């Protein structure tokens, strides 16, 4: 208890303690474990269960486990776990069929993506820095994974056009003369190149960046695949989920109908059906001759799926804004785009970041479904590791190992989301 701060006659009397003390170890035990007969029985039952579970597990996983073995047969001599299997297979579980001597590449790709996610989770980075971190991180990731990237010159000019157009539209009112000229120059250069390219005047050039040997997506596997599918699924689904949410809240009936229909359709069907659709129907959708990489098809399905879920979360954020915010923005004379960009989205998105992280955890787990259409994600490579005839009979060990890896990622993200929720709540009360 804190000292009594108010002065008065009460302070003159000696402090009297309550009859039984609440603090100390015994007090804690009494309060939390043995407060009543029912409570005591519960405690005893739970302790008995835990003792049984822990002794069994320690016995299986440590005391009688085999840590070194040539083949699975050596493990059979002991009754415990066969951890030697993990030691034998962990390279395959983590990296799949990626060329063995090149395993450092997916390893560094994973590290790059983790670094990207860690940097993005720092609130001080939530500004233009994200716009640098993500393109650079993505470039490194895919360069490591593919080994060679051919950047079409057209793409560079397209980016120039879009950047110029976006900058011009968004900052038209605040930019000074020089900045405006820069945007217009970017637009002009981009547009001229694209027109000439489409007319066929200019050849289709590409800048090759090829420091490593090329590895096709069919050989990718393991943790890197899981992380790419989840991370880029979310990254691409995010802007389009926001658009869907805005569309659903719009007062234009056709737009709203379109968005509601799409969101409900996607959310009403299982991810598997979208994956099957992507793997079987996407090739049919495209003109003959145009072929779509299997990995990309799965990625497209994940993005479509994620967008609908993100849209619903963002909609929750939009709905949480008090009407007064919209009215105040209107009364100031802001137009729809300004209102949305300056007032609505910054507040709505801040509210939805914790549920968005939970959705990301969901995608991280759900990407495991791609094994059904034959992509070697982390769960799939774990599963494949069991196929080796020399090591049959120890599925529990591999699955527990995979579960531990998934748990590590998902649990730390959920802790971060909880922490952020507290921080953001604090933020509004500042």
């Amino acid at each position, binding site marked *: 208890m804190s000292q009594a701060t108010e002065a008065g006659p009460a302070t003159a009397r000696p402090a009297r303690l309550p009859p039984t003390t609440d603090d100390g170890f015994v007090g804690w035990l009494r309060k939390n474990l043995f407060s009543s007969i029912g409570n005591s029985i519960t405690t005893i039952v739970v302790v008995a269960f835990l003792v049984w579970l822990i002794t069994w597990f320690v016995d299986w996983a440590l005391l009688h486990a085999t840590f070194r073995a040539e083949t699975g047969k050596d493990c059979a001599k002991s009754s415990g776990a066969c951890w030697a299997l993990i030691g034998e297979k962990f390279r395959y579980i983590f990296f799949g069929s990626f060329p063995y001597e090149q395993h450092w590449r997916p390893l560094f790709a994973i590290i790059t993506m983790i670094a990207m996610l860690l940097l993005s989770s720092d609130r001080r980075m939530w500004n233009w820095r994200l716009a640098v971190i993500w393109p650079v991180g993505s470039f490194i990731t895919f360069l490591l994974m593919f080994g060679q990237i051919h950047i079409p010159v057209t793409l560079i000019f397209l980016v120039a056009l879009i950047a110029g157009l976006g900058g011009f539209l968004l900052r038209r009112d605040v930019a000074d003369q020089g900045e405006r000229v820069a945007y217009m120059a970017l637009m002009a250069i981009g547009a001229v190149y694209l027109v000439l390219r489409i007319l066929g005047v200019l050849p289709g050039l590409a800048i090759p960046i090829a420091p490593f040997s090329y590895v096709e997506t069919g050989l990718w596997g393991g943790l890197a695949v899981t992380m790419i599918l989840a991370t880029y699924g979310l990254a691409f689904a995010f802007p389009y989920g926001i658009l869907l949410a805005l569309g659903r809240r719009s007062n234009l009936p056709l737009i709203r109908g379109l968005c509601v229909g799409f969101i409900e359709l996607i959310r009403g069907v299982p991810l598997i059906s979208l994956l099957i659709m992507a793997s079987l129907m996407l090739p049919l959708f495209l003109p003959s001759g145009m072929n779509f990489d299997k990995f990309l098809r799965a990625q497209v399905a994940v993005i479509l799926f994620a967008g609908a879920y993100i849209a619903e979360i963002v909609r929750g954020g939009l709905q949480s804004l008090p009407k007064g915010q919209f*009215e105040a923005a*209107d*009364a*100031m*004379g802001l*137009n729809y785009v300004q209102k949305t960009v*300056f007032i609505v989205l910054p*507040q709505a998105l801040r509210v939805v970041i914790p549920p968005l992280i939970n959705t990301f955890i969901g995608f991280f787990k759900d990407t495991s479904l791609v094994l059904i259409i034959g992509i070697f994600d982390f769960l799939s490579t774990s599963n494949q590791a069991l196929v080796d005839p020399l090591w049959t009979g120890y599925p529990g060990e591999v699955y527990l190992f995979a579960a531990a890896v998934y748990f590590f990622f998902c649990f730390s993200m959920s802790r971060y989301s909880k922490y952020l929720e507290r921080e953001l709540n604090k933020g509004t009360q500042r």
Partner: protein
Amino acid sequence: MAVRNLDAAPTVIELDQVNKWYGQFHVLTDIDLQVKQSEKIVICGPSGSGKSTLIRCINRLEEHQAGTIAVSVDGRRIELTSDVKNVEAIRKEVGMVFQSFNLFPHLTILDNLTLAPIWVKKMPKKEAEDIAMGLLRRVRIPEQAQKYPGQLSGGQQQRVAIARALCMRPQIMLFDEPTSALDPEMVKEVLDVMIELAGEGMTMLVVTHEMGFARSVADRVIFMDRGEIVEQGPPTEFFANPRNERTRTFLSQILHH
């Protein structure tokens, strides 16, 4: 209150036979109202009488369904139609202060003030910030410029909201029950700012129950009930001998409790 000659001043707001319904409910019935430049009007009435709706129609937060509303801006008469250009033009010149402040919680006080001048009036950032700081000094909280709305008291927030509206250099200010959400001890600091503003010749339409404010500042007090303007007149007359029975009942309820 000093008697000013308002008759010579130009009319800045004209409402002619304005009608509005919420579904079947008739909120505004045949409202006729003319506001002269730098006139101060206090609108009072029981809750649900349509007084907030009336001033929210003037900057088209609510859409009226019949009649005309016109606002004069720099001598140019702009009628409120569905034309977005007209709505934009009027909103630039008409500031509004809300009962619940409606400050943007994710922006600092200074950013709250400079947002509209920069993006709507296309003012350079530096200039907007100078104006904003000047206004914050006027409402006596310049030291709070870098804080966020959540860190301020209710009275301070409402003063920021007034400064935010003033930052657009409006010719007309609308106040929608600006002191109703405040604790009693904070009401005065907001009213003081409004009185000061009135002294500078701002055209003001104020929905409020602060009869003291009405007495000392208003040129005209309007009493509304069930969507109609029941009675209006200079405060001395209005409070001394209200002509309508409904006005008398309302005044006795609000003054003697």
